[in-house]
């Protein structure tokens, strides 16, 4: 029995990998571009889902995404650095600035973190827009596409694989971190802050570590974004983008921290493509659909699917349940 499922599982996995690798050869450039965007948003969603593990919802993901994009852009144009060298720097900048800011917010609990995030989202955008150094509201430009040796990432297919690389790295890191000892502590915090601190977990420090790691990957996503966008404009990194990111995660299923954001981003990237409606009503219709999804599929699309699919396909992560739910009932009696 068990070996049977194992074989099926491997088979499904292999087919999935093959399909993902072959996608840009099966579709046109525009669809490939949609996939690239899906990966970008998926990575942002992953970072949101990652901090949700410790009970912290971030509303500033787009802002740090922007920090990454701007760091890469400015280093490439002003310091003439290679794209690859800017990657770690972008991550470190985002972590360092994040550390300064979150030192204030994280010890104050989830709600302050949340509101702080929104304010940061606005502040960072404002900073990019009104400070000359960052290029103002017109943004800043990178002329060169990244390259390794002779391979230049300027076509859709190349960028698709570059994106896959980023996404894979992101997924592997997050997966490994979740499985590690620190990941177990994070889980404990996500389940109950009180309980976690009562067993001696330094909640603030662990949360800080989690958020900073998430910051690192957000910035990395920003750098990747520069590779295919080549232009960064402050308006791209606004609060509305952060809200979209949350939408991906919840539509996908907040309990599925690795697959959920990707599925959510995929759905929200492609479904509007096939909805032929007057564009000025699109945002209204999307909003109505989101309300309906949240009401009828509160566990997201994956939660809905997994109720119908075989359990091994999607493993649920029980710890997230406690994050959103209110009024926890005492277990004593």
């Amino acid at each position, binding site marked *: 029995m068990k070996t049977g499922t194992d074989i099926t599982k491997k088979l499904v996995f292999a087919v999935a990998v093959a399909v993902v690798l072959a996608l840009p050869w099966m579709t046109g450039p525009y669809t490939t571009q949609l996939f690239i965007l899906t990966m970008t948003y998926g990575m942002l969603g992953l970072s949101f889902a990652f901090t949700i593990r410790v009970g912290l919802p971030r509303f500033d993901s787009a802002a740090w995404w922007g920090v990454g994009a701007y760091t890469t852009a400015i280093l490439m144009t002003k310091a003439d650095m290679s794209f690859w060298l800017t990657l770690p720097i972008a991550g470190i900048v985002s972590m360092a600035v994040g550390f300064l800011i979150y*030192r204030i917010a994280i010890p104050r609990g989830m709600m*302050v973190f949340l509101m702080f995030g929104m304010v940061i989202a*606005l*502040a960072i955008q404002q*900073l990019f827009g009104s400070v000359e150094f960052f290029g103002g509201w017109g943004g800043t430009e990178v002329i060169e596409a990244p390259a390794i040796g002779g391979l230049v990432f300027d076509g859709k297919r190349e960028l698709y694989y570059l994106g896959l690389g980023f996404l894979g790295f992101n997924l592997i890191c997050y997966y490994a971190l979740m499985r590690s000892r620190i990941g177990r502590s994070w889980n404990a915090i996500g389940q*109950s*802050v009180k309980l976690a601190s009562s067993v001696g977990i330094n909640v603030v420090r662990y949360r800080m570590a989690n958020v900073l790691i998430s910051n690192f990957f957000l910035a990395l996503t920003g750098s990747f974004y520069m590779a295919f966008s080549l232009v960064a404009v402050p308006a791209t990194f606004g609060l509305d983008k952060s809200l979209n990111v949350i939408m991906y995660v919840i539509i996908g299923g907040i309990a599925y921290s690795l697959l959920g954001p990707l599925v959510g981003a995929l759905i929200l990237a492609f479904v509007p493509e096939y909805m032929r409606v007057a564009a000025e009503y699109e945002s209204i219709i999307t909003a109505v659909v989101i309300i309906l999804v*949240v009401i009828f599929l509160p566990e997201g699309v994956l939660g809905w699917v997994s109720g119908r699919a075989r359990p091994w396909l999607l493993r649920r992560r029980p710890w997230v349940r406690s994050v*959103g739910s209110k009024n926890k009932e005492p277990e004593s009696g």
Partner: protein
Amino acid sequence: MDLSLFPQILLNGLMIGGIYALIASGFTLILGVIQVFNFAQGQFYMLGAFIAIAVVTNLGLPYPVAIIVALLATAILGALLYFAVIQWTTRSGFFNTMLVTVAFGTIVAQTAMLSFGSREAVLPPVVPGTLSLGGVTIPNGKLVVIAGAVVVMAALHFFMKTRIGVSMLAASENRDVASLQGINPKRVFWITMAVGCGLCGVAGALVAPVLAASGTMGSTIFIKALLVVLVGGTGSMSGALLAAFVVGIAESFAFHFVGHLGLLVIFVLVAILIFFRPGGLLGKPLPVPGE
């Protein structure tokens, strides 16, 4: 600098502070009682302004009536938001509920954009003219806004002392025990939504003659209201009031001295304040669902 400008800058701060106070107290009320992070708050503010303008210009009714209509309309819409959307999502979690309010806000905003978008919406001044006090010119319109905000805040204060008001506080503190007193939580919740959203509507109606209305007026004021909540600390109406005026005045002065970067300066100041006073000026730590 010219010292005679000081009172004027202060007055600007007071006026916008009064508006922040209304929006922020509506927000903390909803957050505290229902534990819903109502993102649509800013859109209700915008709606209030448009409704007031429509009532005055299209129906020709006097301005005070317009304020009441705006209050009622936004309050009803707030209750509708609760009945139609929020009550089905609270069980599935904090973020789901929040996302739904975001979506609802989008619907309100884009609908307003499509129906009012290309028209300017301005009300003639309610009390025209200016007041001259020792060389300082004070426009009456602003005084009306400040007075209106104070009156509404006072009304809210007394409302919170009534049976319904106290039951809202009780439900916000301990929902289970409140229901053990015979308080119907659902009833308290929709009333809270109505009051919280109605406050925004009133704020919108109050500024309509002074600031005019536009489809985008709701989005940033909401963030500013969050700033006020951070500074004031939730759960404390007086904290929200104080913080609103502090933020309003600080913003007014910051703009004067640092220009368009004033907002950034405010952010930094707030961060420093929160670093030293985690609970804000007067409030207690923020309620944390699920923690």
